[in-house]
């Protein structure tokens, strides 16, 4: 048999064929299809227009109205109502609302709804997050979602794979977020267009699942179809507690073919910032002097997980947020919210002067719960810093890891964590 990458193996399995080749068009069976309060209303409308009566499998269509939760206005409440009524009608197993809703790409892995070896599509571009578990997962639009809701299948062009090999040891305060920002800074916002990004090397094998998710989450910011990390003992431990279904580990053959291989020496990677207005505009934190800020967001499907809140709490302990700066902490799911509370992080955040938001995508996409005025500047642990992304088109967003975000909140300017914590 010809050698294949992990991505090619998962796609071949779901297409019911022995092997696939990059560029080939396949029709594949979908394990999980996801929609949110922005994208699912159009999918549901297309589903009905096509005359469909039932989803292909009530356990495999997942709806998470997370973007404007708690409903920010009448229109967004109407959108969620469409999802809620559809979930009731179709008796969907996985619909999350009220106190159960969390940011979709933190919620689905945490609940064990997506598992290693899966083929997942989501009408949300950050669906690529689940590559961190060794699944093939990719973002699609609403019409694609509608097609899957009806048939359980979708067409794909098998992507070429691009291998990113990390070497050496991570510097202090460097997390998965810095590695992926570094890569995007290197290849550009279309540097992996249509491709699958495979992250490998000893430092990756040591990364937590939370950090791996932050990496795969931002594969789309390099234009990629997917990001993926080979599952291992760390994945197994994470899944054993959660998996709702049996799972399967795939790995790339040693002689698999890659369109490109890039190597990075981690000794050279420092805490990294993506400056406005593209994720590829990266700089080392140490290169940025006196960038004063108005707001800090710690949350999102990139960095709203427990590891992220833990490092923020470590830095903020006994400290105060700078005057005239708003720090908003958004635990990504109700479980993370509860754990952070039990671990005492909320005391630290509140004493520092932070706002603690319920789980939501909220400000990341300029929805609500922390919108910027013209001329304002925010540091955010989110994934996009496009023009107008967090509010007024004249506002600015700087993307960082949670440690840099916390340090910056204390200093009132972009700051290195070493400046406030040893």
């Amino acid at each position, binding site marked *: 048999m010809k050698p294949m990458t992990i991505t090619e193996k998962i796609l071949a399995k779901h297409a019911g064929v022995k092997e696939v080749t990059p560029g080939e*068009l396949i029709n594949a069976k979908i394990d999980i299809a996801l929609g949110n309060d*922005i*994208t699912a*209303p*159009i999918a549901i*409308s*297309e589903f009905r*227009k*096509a*005359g469909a009566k039932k989803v292909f499998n009530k356990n495999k269509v997942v709806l998470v109205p997370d*973007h*404007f939760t708690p409903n*920010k*206005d009448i*229109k*967004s409440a109407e*959108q969620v109502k469409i999802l809620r009524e559809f979930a009731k009608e179709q008796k969907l197993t996985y619909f999350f609302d009220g106190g159960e809703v969390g940011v979709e790409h933190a919620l689905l892995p945490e609940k064990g709804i997506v598992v290693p070896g899966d083929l997942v599509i*989501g*009408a*949300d*571009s950050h*669906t690529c997050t689940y590559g961190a578990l060794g699944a093939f997962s990719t*973002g*699609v*639009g*609403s*019409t*694609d979602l*509608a*097609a899957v809701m*009806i*048939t359980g299948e979708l*067409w794909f062009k098998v992507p070429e794979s691009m291998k990113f090999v990390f070497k050496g040891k991570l510097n202090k305060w460097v997390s998965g977020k810095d590695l992926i920002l570094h890569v995007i800074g290197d290849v550009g*916002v*279309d540097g992996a*267009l*249509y491709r699958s990004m495979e992250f490998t090397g000893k430092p990756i094998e040591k990364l937590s699942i939370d950090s791996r998710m932050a990496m795969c989450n931002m594969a*789309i910011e390099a*234009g990629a*179809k997917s990001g993926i990390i080979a599952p291992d003992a760390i994945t197994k431990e994470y899944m054993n507690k959660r998996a709702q279904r049996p799972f399967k580990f795939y790995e790339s053959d040693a002689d698999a073919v890659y369109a490109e291989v890039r190597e990075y020496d981690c000794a050279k990677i420092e805490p990294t910032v993506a400056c406005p207005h*593209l994720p590829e505009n990266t700089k080392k934190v140490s290169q940025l002097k006196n960038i004063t800020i108005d707001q800090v967001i710690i949350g999102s499907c990139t960095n709203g997980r427990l590891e992220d809140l833990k490092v923020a709490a470590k830095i903020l302990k006994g400290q105060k947020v700078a005057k005239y700066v708003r720090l908003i902490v958004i635990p990504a799911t109700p479980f993370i919210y509860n754990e952070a509370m039990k671990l005492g992080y909320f005391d630290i955040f509140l004493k520092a002067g932070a706002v603690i938001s319920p789980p939501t995508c909220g400000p990341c*996409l*300029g*929805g609500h719960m922390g919108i910027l005025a013209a001329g304002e500047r925010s540091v955010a642990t989110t994934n*996009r810093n*496009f*023009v*107008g*992304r967090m*509010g007024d*088109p004249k506002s600015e967003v700087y993307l960082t890891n949670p440690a840099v975000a916390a340090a910056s909140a204390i200093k009132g300017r972009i700051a290195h964590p070493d400046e406030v914590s040893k």
Partner: protein
Amino acid sequence: MKFKGRVWKYGADIDTDKIIPARYLNTSDPKELAKHCMEDEDASFASKVQKGDIIVADKNFGCGSSREHAPIAIKAAGVACVIAKSYARIFYRNSFNMGLSILESDEVHGATDSGDELEVDMDSGVITNLTKGKSFTARPVPPFMQELIKAGGLMESIKKRG
């Protein structure tokens, strides 16, 4: 299919937040979305765009979010087609699925200015800049995507399959 239209020219990496900002995504009504199309890139676009106009852009048009609202807003604004050097993959897929005409060309962007009149032949892929008197040929649409268009989009092709 052949048509003529006036050009709106934009640069590289026009993201979906520029095409339709998320603050307007609390609805999926095409008419509402069209009112805010391209707002954060060009605030005058939505009020001045005319039916049949053409957007010409540099590389990676439509990068960012998976929101189908982006091609929906462009189509509802009256734009006949988009011609870019390349497209972000979800936007590319969405456009075919919902029926926005898009073409890829490396040359048109450099040889065209805003306000120029283009003639586009979707069948042959020939794009003529009538203002400047130059012709170009777009990259051919992959056969699979052509079939999708012929079937009337993804949902129609599914209905036909039964």
